């Protein structure tokens, strides 16, 4: 059914977004951009040098990924951690379920993880009889609403306090309606700590994994992964293979960039370094730890000409600054990864569904802001162009594209072009909006055609480019002699 769409899916979504939702997204994203800028530039004379360094470290790691992954596996095993590998999303889900079954786990808490979103872990576990509760406040609300996150760092950026208060009332988290953000937070605190204490396991993602020691880093502001892990005997970490960095020393580069880029903080409140089950003598914390390394298309991305996207540390800065994201919201990207990062990552990661997502790389003005804010300096605009090229080469139809052949004929014949320009004034008087031509209507559905001035620019340029004009380029002047 895909080629039948008259407009790009993302445009359709953006057009039907409610004013309320658009305001929430726009305000949240703009505030994120402002805070990031302030904190990064106040602390560093040259933040770009740090961003380039982070990108270079990640590039090096990805280029030697086999070596680092093997090193990490050995280090983790030596620390008593059980290491698993999942080639596909289904492999990961089954691996995690098998571990849970082995421990007879029926209820657990989950700390926010994009990798888990990517493989739809919650729904799968719940369908298999494991009560899996999201513990990050935003993700908790998403789960209550059976919604999907619309931002990597701020999952409920698209919701306002009134919607949340209604959700809490409807789902029995609160006994009455109260939309004060502090009250909402306190109510979640009371509700969730009972769940933490009652859980039998905790699933987390990982922000970084150091190949030299196998030390994993999980950051949260709320303390939810810390609280989720403290009372339970079992920890399962789902880690994308691109999360590796060579050594612990490199964390100074990445931690300083992550907090500032994501939320405008020097460091996220809780930076947890996990390297195995709890210490001897410690009464709290898991007795057993598992790491599930997830490929799910990443090795294919590594083999592509867009491998730079694997540098991503999931800060959301490119989402905050993107003019398209701000208007369309993350949901328009139809994947856990919205915004510029998603426009590149989604079509690549779900490669067998590339045609379905081929519109995403076109949802960009190529303004370059996403690259300028990226903490690992990913050339996102270049990657978007490479994906547009891929779509063209694979002849994936572009909805609402008009045939370019007539334009090519016009543009290669100066005489025809002049005639067309003069004639184009006539278009102002044609009832284009009601012309029964399907491609034209689709095209106009997405664009507003400015009134034609009928070759005014050519006349203006001709009048201006006289030989005595000093600003006339020399080559042009010489040609005339």
């Amino acid at each position, binding site marked *: 059914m895909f080629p039948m769409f008259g407009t790009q899916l993302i445009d359709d979504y953006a057009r039907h977004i409610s004013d309320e939702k658009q305001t929430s997204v726009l*305000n*949240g994203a703009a505030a*994120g951009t402002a805070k990031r800028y302030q904190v990064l530039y106040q*602390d560093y004379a040259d933040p770009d*040098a740090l961003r380039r*360094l982070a990108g270079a*470290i990640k590039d*090096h790691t*990805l*280029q030697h*990924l086999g070596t680092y*992954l*093997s090193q990490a596996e050995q280090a983790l095993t030596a620390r008593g951690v059980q290491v698993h*590998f999942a080639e596909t999303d289904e492999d990961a889900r089954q691996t995690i379920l098998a571990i849970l079954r082995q421990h007879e786990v029926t209820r657990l808490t989950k700390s926010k993880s994009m990798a888990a979103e990517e493989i739809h872990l919650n729904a799968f576990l719940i369908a298999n009889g494991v009560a899996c509760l999201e513990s990050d*406040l*935003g993700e908790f*609300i998403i789960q209550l609403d059976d919604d999907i996150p619309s931002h990597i760092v*701020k*999952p409920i950026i698209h919701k306002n*306090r009134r919607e*949340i208060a209604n959700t809490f009332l409807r789902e029995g988290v609160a006994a009455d309606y109260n939309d004060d*953000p502090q009250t909402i*937070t306190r109510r979640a*605190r009371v509700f969730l*700590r009972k769940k933490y*204490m009652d859980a039998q396991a905790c699933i987390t993602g990982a922000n970084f994994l150091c190949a030299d020691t196998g030390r994993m880093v999980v950051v949260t502001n*709320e*303390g*939810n992964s*810390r*609280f989720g892990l*403290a*009372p339970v005997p079992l920890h399962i970490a789902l880690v994308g*293979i691109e999360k590796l960095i*060579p050594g*612990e*020393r490199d964390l*100074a*580069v990445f931690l300083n960039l992550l907090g500032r880029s994501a939320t405008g*903080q*020097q*460091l*996220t*409140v*809780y930076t*947890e*370094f*996990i390297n*195995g089950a*709890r*210490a001897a003598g*410690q*009464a*709290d914390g898991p007795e057993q730890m598992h790491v599930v*390394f997830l*490929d799910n298309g990443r*090795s294919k991305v*590594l*083999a592509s000409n867009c*491998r730079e996207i694997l540098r991503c540390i999931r800060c959301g800065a490119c989402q905050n600054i993107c003019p398209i994201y701000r208007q369309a919201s993350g949901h328009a990207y139809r994947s856990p990864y919205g915004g510029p990062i998603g426009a590149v990552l989604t079509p690549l990661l779900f490669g067998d569904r590339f045609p379905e997502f081929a519109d995403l790389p076109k949802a960009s003005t190529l303004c370059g802001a996403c690259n300028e804010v990226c903490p690992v300096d990913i050339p996102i605009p270049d990657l978007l162009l490479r994906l547009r090229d891929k779509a063209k080469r694979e002849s994936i139809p572009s909805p609402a594209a008009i045939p370019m052949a007539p334009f090519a004929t016009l543009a290669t014949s100066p005489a025809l072009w002049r005639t067309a320009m003069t004639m184009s004034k006539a278009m102002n008087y044609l009832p284009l909006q009601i012309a029964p031509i399907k491609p034209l209507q689709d095209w106009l559905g997405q664009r507003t055609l400015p009134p034609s001035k009928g070759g005014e620019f050519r006349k203006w340029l001709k009048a201006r480019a006289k030989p005595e004009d000093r600003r006339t380029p020399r080559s042009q002047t010489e040609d005339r002699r």
Partner: protein
Amino acid sequence: MSRAAIFRKIEAATAAIKVKAARPDYAAAITHAAPKLAGGDLLEIFARNLAAVSGRTMRSVAELLAFLTANKQCHGYCDPALYERVGAPLAAAGLTVETAYDRTRYDDYQFGITQASGAIAESGSLILDDERTSRRLAALSPWIHVAVLEPAAIHRTIGDALAALGASPNIIWVTGPSKTADVEGILIEGVHGPGEQIALVL
């Protein structure tokens, strides 16, 4: 099965990359936030940066006692190893101080006093090491967490603290109280963890 397949695909992908970069060499200074490190001794810098993330630094048990009583937080937990120096004076002033944390009564504890294994001046972070924290939950479930810190254990930079991580299986850097801005971007402190983070420097 998955393991071999993943490594095979990674090898094929990386073997095709013609120009590979060496691991970047860099001076630690590139990561230092100079304005955060300016002025004063390590303790002063630490206290200033902790205050910037709405944490508190206290210099005596008397100061802590005054804060707890003023806020009517009179029941808590204290690491047995710190009882003599911190817990006992609070108990003597009439506060209820337990040295065993009972997880079935997690909401009874209004404050928790545990040992910090260090701190980071640059970021105002407290370092809690599993091997030196008596109970993880006692540092997490009470509204007020008091981390007892020795001034000599303060690292200057984040990089210095990373170099000194050691072999503990669980270390956490706590930079201020637990917080969220998930609801309309409004900052709220005390989400799942403590709403008050205190460094008690002794």
